[in-house]
């Protein structure tokens, strides 16, 4: 009997990643066909948005004092149990059954393909499952895109705070630059707007130019990043942190004082841009570009920090004086790190603005920067997979716990205090996911025949 759990674990561990992704895709398919019926049948009143967590919590009565809370607990509990039944039937069973069944065929299939194609198939499967899962409840899609934006923010901030060891707390400032520059451009070029007038280009261009405009927003943010990069030659640690806060405030105040883009009232019209794009071709444009944006960010930052040139960033963290004396061009490296980091914050900002459809300077204050900081520390400094995980967990928690109202924030920050007390290194502790599970085992890379590694030196 004791053998059973171990054997199940081993069996599940052998299933390649792609089989799990296909399982999830199947589950989302099943949900879109049967979800609503099942939800009504077991008394959930429809499809639960986030596995039933939000819906059960929304049954808490918070405004009638402690008595109200206690009296509402049974109904929360009952709903939660029912949602659990739903989750098991719709997600857990299909995922594991499909993954288990497909394990062997997928393993064989993957081994016949070149690695780049395998990676591509994984990405497409993941995208399709996110699309079907999100398509069922519009709110889900929004949250998926928020997660994407936050992954970009967190990974790019991790380059500065985790890899370079400086403490930047003004990341939202660069996000604001990207958000405003790209929004103003898209609204000016593609929509009928009160300030900018009729669309400048034909609708067809919007689909092609959208990613380029995001990049322009990123470049504008990268240029602002120089505002931190140059002071960083002379100033470090706490003092540079003050510089980053100042830059955040400068950018926010500057935007507040440009009347043409709405000043403190904010800027909107991005929903119109989206409608223009959808009128050309009706696909989930924003989900596509957020997905691609996340992939590009992860690849760029990973490749940069694992190259010898990029490792100069880590050498600066470990001992800046030694780095400079051991031939690392620290100024050049700092400029690179700050511009790459703020470039992606700008991209995240552009996506965020179009997802939300409305931005104002008040969105991009130090509070927003702090949120990114929290995600970096939650995931673990100097870990890209940690940043991805924490952005996902943090964003989901923020949304799922929404019914708790004010108590949500208390709970989340309390968790952060506990994290700092008991696991300061964050979820991943400076390691990457691939340090725990090899790419070969996930089925992302073909198994290597001979054992690679450094042979011990013969004395």
């Amino acid at each position, binding site marked *: 009997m004791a053998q059973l759990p171990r054997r199940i674990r081993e069996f599940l561990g052998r299933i390649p990643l792609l089989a799990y992704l296909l399982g999830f895709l199947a589950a989302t398919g099943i949900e879109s066909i049967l979800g609503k019926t099942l939800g009504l049948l077991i008394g959930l009143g429809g499809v639960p948005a986030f596995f039933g967590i939000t819906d059960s919590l929304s049954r808490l009565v918070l405004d009638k004092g402690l008595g109200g809370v206690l009296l509402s607990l049974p109904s929360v509990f009952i709903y939660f149990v029912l949602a659990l039944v739903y989750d098991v039937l719709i997600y857990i069973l299909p995922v594991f059954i499909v993954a288990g069944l497909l394990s062997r065929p997928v393993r064989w299939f993957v081994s016949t393909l070149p690695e780049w194609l395998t990676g591509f198939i994984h990405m497409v499967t993941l995208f399709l499952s996110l699309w079907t899962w999100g398509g069922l409840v519009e709110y889900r899609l929004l949250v998926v895109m928020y997660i994407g934006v936050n992954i970009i923010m967190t990974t790019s901030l991790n380059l500065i705070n985790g890899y370079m060891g400086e403490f930047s707390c003004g990341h939202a400032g660069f996000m604001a630059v990207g958000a405003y520059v790209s929004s103003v451009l898209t609204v000016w070029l593609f929509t009928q707007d009160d300030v900018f007038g009729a669309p400048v280009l034909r609708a067809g261009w919007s689909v092609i130019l959208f990613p380029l405009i995001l990049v322009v927003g990123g470049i504008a943010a990268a240029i602002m990043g120089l505002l931190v990069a140059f002071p960083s030659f002379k100033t470090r640690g706490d003092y540079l942190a003050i510089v980053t806060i100042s830059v955040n405030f400068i950018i926010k105040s500057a935007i507040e004082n440009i009347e043409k883009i709405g000043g403190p009232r904010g800027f909107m019209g991005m929903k119109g841009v989206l409608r223009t794009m959808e009128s050309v071709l009706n696909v989930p444009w924003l989900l596509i570009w957020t997905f691609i944006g996340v992939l590009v960010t992860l*690849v*760029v930052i990973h*490749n*940069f920090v694992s*190259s*010898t*040139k*990029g*490792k*100069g960033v*880590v*050498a600066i963290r*470990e*001992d800046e*004086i*030694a*780095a*400079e*004396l*051991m*031939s*690392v*061009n*620290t*100024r050049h490296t700092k400029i*690179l790190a700050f511009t*790459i980091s703020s470039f992606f914050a700008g991209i995240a900002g552009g996506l965020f603005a179009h997802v939300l459809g409305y931005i104002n300077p008040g969105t991009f204050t130090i509070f927003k920067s702090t949120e990114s900081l929290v995600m970096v520390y939650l995931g673990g400094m100097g870990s890209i997979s940690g940043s991805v995980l924490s952005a996902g967990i943090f964003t989901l928690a923020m949304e799922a716990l929404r019914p708790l109202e004010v108590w949500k924030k208390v709970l989340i920050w309390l968790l952060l205090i506990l994290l700092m007390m008991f696991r300061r290194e964050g979820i991943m502790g400076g390691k990457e996911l691939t340090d725990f599970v090899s790419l070969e085992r996930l089925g992302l890379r073909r198994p290597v025949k001979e054992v690679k590694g*450094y*042979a*011990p*030196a013969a*004395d």
Partner: protein
Amino acid sequence: MPLLQINHLTHFFGGLRAVHDFNLDLEKGELIGLIGPNGAGKTTIFNLITGAYRPTQGDIRFNGHNLIGLRPHQITAKGIGRTFQTIRLWNNLSVLDNIRIAQFAQIKYGVVDSILHTKRYREEEKEIEKRSLELLEVFNLRHLANEVVANLPYGQQREVEIVRALATKPRLLLLDEPAAGMNPGEIDALLKLIQWIRREFDLTIWIIEHQMRVIMGICERIKVIDFGETIAEGTPTEIQTNPRVLKAYLGEEGF
């Protein structure tokens, strides 16, 4: 032409004169020592040469190039490698990464190459890794390539630091108290290592030390400074009997 030429080098920290009118012509292939009591200004001279400080006065020429005003990484790229009095490795990185990063100046690919993993990038990285492993092999440290530096014992960290300095492809190697914290047995091994490196890598070496006996055996020429002033220069035997040196080390009452 001397490899390193220092003329009238003077440096002040605020009102404190750390180095005064220091002159040196260092010929290619020499192995010289700089000794002096603690606080005599020895490390300051190394910091002035490597560009960590900018001298108040005087000039430093290496291989015909003026070094004044260059940033440290540029000076290192010109061929001056160094170690530190207290070990300054990048502690949380692997031994291999420490050696790789020290070849930063030899990188020719750009950021875009590193992001797109172009052919140029892959070739250069392969070369860097190959060279790093070869260097480690030479010092019998190859089996530690993936070990995090902080986990190594003190003696091995000293060795790794020397390997890292060699990875910058120096022509002149500055060793700042390489024997600090070592017992007599380790010191003997270190001195052998230094002489071997000098031959193997065709280096000019300049060692700082404050314990005289450490370098008496291997240096052909020794300079002695005290309170920033040069008080003696000559062969080890000359230095050992020089009254000013004895005074600086042992005080007025001396022998």
